[in-house]
């Protein structure tokens, strides 16, 4: 069978490396490479993160502010003067500087302005057409968008629903996947390899194939419109988690099991006192990955909880809100931020465990 060849022997005629051609020393070339690569990284990172800036700025705008060309939430500035509201403009002064002045008495060819910072001073006469001036913008954050979005989506209810569904699911999948992984890692089960292969191959089985009969069964049981269809199946283990846990359990030295057996422990005891104490990181990784799954799962909550807005998790709940409020982008962006803040903050607090799941999946050294 052919394999991709790892060619370590390049034609030797190319031995003259580029380093000798360029006049730079190795050290300064390294520094240059570092600067270039890091700048490329920063450029990609800006593209990567700029939607967050869009979200935050939009979420603090009013509908009016959305129409003006400013990036930040800004409004044309006005001041109170003599009981009237005056608009502030960017006025070019004779000395070439720009000054923010409030339009007091507009005229065709020249207008009177007052200095907003010095209202008691004489009005300034300015020659020119005021209609060609740019209005001055001042920051004007619409903080009230957040409480409004919070109430409109019933955020506390959605978070509660999501957390509870996730919590029961985590208990189910951590418990069952641990037992199953332990079984596959340590015991001489008949047809073990075949069974494990079947387990792994369920990864490629599209869930649509089992969905309709499962839905009918759950609906006969009266489970449609409850959380049970979103929780109970997780008590029967799944391929990814079993694989991950089994990989980890295999790294626990078997001599430790054997020592416990000699002391009279049974297999459950060995799991509890030998395997589990060393496996918390991977169990946490499995739990977190289920939390992310529950936070994002959309298809099944949509099918099972369509008629029960009071039980919907955040994914479906926000979506319903999105349908209703499509003309209020600022509220949609405020809601996006509310929905992502918990998982993202949790990620920064527990990065180590979040990324561990991947590391454990065991890319062999």
């Amino acid at each position, binding site marked *: 069978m*052919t394999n*991709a060849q*790892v*060619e*370590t022997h*390049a034609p030797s005629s190319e031995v003259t*490396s*580029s380093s000798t051609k360029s006049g730079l020393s190795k050290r300064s070339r390294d520094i240059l490479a570092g600067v270039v*690569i890091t700048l490329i990284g920063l450029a*990609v990172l800006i593209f*990567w993160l700029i*939607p967050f800036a869009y979200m935050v700025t*939009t979420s603090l705008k009013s509908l009016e502010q*959305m129409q003006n060309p400013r990036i930040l939430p800004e409004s044309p500035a006005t001041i109170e003067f003599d009981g009237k509201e005056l608009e502030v403009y960017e006025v070019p002064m004779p000395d070439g500087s720009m000054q923010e002045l409030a339009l007091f008495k507009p005229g065709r060819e020249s207008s009177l302005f007052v200095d907003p910072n010095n209202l008691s001073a004489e009005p300034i006469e300015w020659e020119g057409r005021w209609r060609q001036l740019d209005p001055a913008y001042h920051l004007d954050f619409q903080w009230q968008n957040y409480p409004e979005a919070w109430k409109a989506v019933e955020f506390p209810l959605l978070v509660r629903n999501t957390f509870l569904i996730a919590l029961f699911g985590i208990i189910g999948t951590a418990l069952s996947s641990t037992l*199953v992984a332990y*079984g*596959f890692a*340590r*015991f001489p*089960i008949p047809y*073990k*390899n075949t069974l494990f*292969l079947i387990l*792994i191959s*369920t*990864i*490629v*089985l*599209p*869930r*649509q194939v089992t*969905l*309709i009969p499962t839905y*009918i069964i759950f609906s006969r049981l009266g489970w449609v419109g409850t959380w049970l269809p979103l929780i109970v*199946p997780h008590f*029967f*283990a799944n391929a990814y988690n*079993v*694989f991950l846990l089994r990989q980890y359990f295999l790294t626990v030295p078997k001599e430790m099991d054997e020592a416990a057996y000699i002391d009279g422990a049974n*297999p459950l005891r060995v799991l509890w006192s030998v395997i589990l104490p060393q496996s918390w990181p991977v169990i946490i990784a499995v739990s977190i990955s289920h939390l*992310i799954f529950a936070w*994002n799962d*959309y*298809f099944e909550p949509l099918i099972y909880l369509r008629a029960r807005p009071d039980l919907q998790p*955040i*994914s479906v709940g*926000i979506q319903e809100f999105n349908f209703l409020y499509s003309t209020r982008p600022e509220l949609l962006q405020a*809601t*996006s931020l509310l*929905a*992502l803040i918990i*998982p*993202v903050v*949790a*990620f*920064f607090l527990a990065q180590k465990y*979040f*990324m561990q799941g991947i590391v454990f999946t065991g*890319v*062999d050294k």
Partner: protein
Amino acid sequence: MTVFDEARDLDVRGERRSERGSLEKQMGRWGLLFISPWLIGFFFLTLLPMAASFAMTFTNFNVTQPDAISFIGLDNYRRLFTDSDLRAALEATFKFFLLAIPISIIQPILMAGLLNAGALRGRRFFTTLFYMTYMVPVVSAILIWGGMLNGQTGWINRFLAIFGVNGPDWLKSTTWVYPGLILIGLWGVGNAMLFTFIGMRNVPHELYEAAEVDGAGYLRKTWNITLPLITPIIFYNLVLSVIGLFQYFTIPYIVSRGTGEPGNATLFYNIHFYRTAFRFQDMGYGATLAWLLFAIVMIFTLLIFWSARYWVYSPGGSE
């Protein structure tokens, strides 16, 4: 090493070969007990429903009138050939396939390659921030990118306008909706990127050193060492991407509100399935669509597995 190799290689490290006898039997029973949650679940939540769903493909079962069920032979299968929505769904799915699958392979490699570049400063900083977006709930990502892609007020078109480019109304155009959907999905690269990155870190240093002695430059080292050695991970990403693509649902469903707009461009296979089985409650035909999907996914998966021998590096030589 991928999940699949692992399953295949299991017998190499088979457990407790040396201790046979009654102890082994007893331990076997314990083992069965431990894996019983999966065995029970596999039987009741996978095998039985699969059989039932296959049987349903020969019926006109509708969940609102369960008693009116009758055997209709191959009618559902004939209907596959006349279902114009199915044709649209297959067309949309395969069009998107051509764009999405290459990107889902190349994007993790490029990003992991950046993270793996020897000269990069602040590696941890970059890794954390690139991975972080994986935590953003899909619904939030859709709302945020949906706003960015807005034809009038979105930042992407405003940015293009700086260069005098008149950007399209992304999610409302039958052509531009696909790149738009890709952009919405970019943030989900997290695991694939990290996985690829770890694969690259694990390439033995001696290989690069040997290549440098022979005068290989960056491109040559990447092409002849890094890429061949991470083909198992590319293989794994490819399998998961293809499976994921045929189940693509949340993003297009929310973007188009389940209508398949614009045109039928976002009427992806799974959306057609959802509408048939759950909105119209036409479950007999829905089950047929599910089995057709299964068949398509199996064909692709088998093709990928078959092709693996020609391009996936396996340590320790053949087989």
